[in-house]
């Protein structure tokens, strides 16, 4: 059963600390999305990659957030330094290559981040 995995599932950290979240997309999917979900803002697209290259990161605070795909099986989202306002659930989603996918995205279970 192919699925997107995310680690860690929960993270509690103190303000100023570095946070790294990891995502393993479904094997063969060539596009990876990072979302942030909060009660106030809902679901926000932070960035997405195709074939490991960043396509759009306009939704991401540039000064503290960075996203990378070191290889086709791993995407990372890093926050340095973290702030309390970064507390949210961060979702990764992956998408199959080609038009047959009809843009369908498969979501991971999320990483719940709490910054104290």
């Amino acid at each position, binding site marked *: 059963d192919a699925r997107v995995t995310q680690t860690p599932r929960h993270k509690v950290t103190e303000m100023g600390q570095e946070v790294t979240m990891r995502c393993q997309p479904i094997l063969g999917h060539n596009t990876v999305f990072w979302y942030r979900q909060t009660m106030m803002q*809902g679901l926000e697209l932070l960035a997405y990659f195709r074939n490991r290259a960043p396509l759009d990161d306009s939704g991401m605070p540039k000064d503290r957030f960075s996203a990378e795909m070191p290889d086709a099986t791993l995407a990372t989202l890093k926050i340095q330094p973290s702030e309390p306002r970064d507390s949210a659930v961060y979702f990764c989603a992956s998408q199959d290559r*080609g038009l047959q996918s*009809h843009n369908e995205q498969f*979501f991971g*279970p999320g990483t719940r981040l709490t910054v104290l």
Partner: protein
Amino acid sequence: AQSVTQPDIHITVSEGASLELRCNYSYGATPYLFWYVQSPGQGLQLLLKYFSGDTLVQGIKGFEAEFKRSQSSFNLRKPSVHWSDAAEYFCAVGAPSSASKIIFGSGTRLSIRP
């Protein structure tokens, strides 16, 4: 640019009653349309999608949705809800090009009255 509106923030229905969740989209051509469901503490799961053909789409868990081009709508329906249907429901719209992003609505929270 695409956009999607879910006018109902929160809906409560009785168990066994019928359900309709509204979704309106904005896009210049025929879009891809989706309904996702999010249970508490979980990720988003695809219920159904429309990309072409029959405008009435069947999904998982007994849900269906109808694409109405004239009304720019893609409402989600279920004839009889179960307590386990309590969740957040997201409508989304995408442009028919190769592997592009989709735009999510703000969501409708569904509560079930026993």
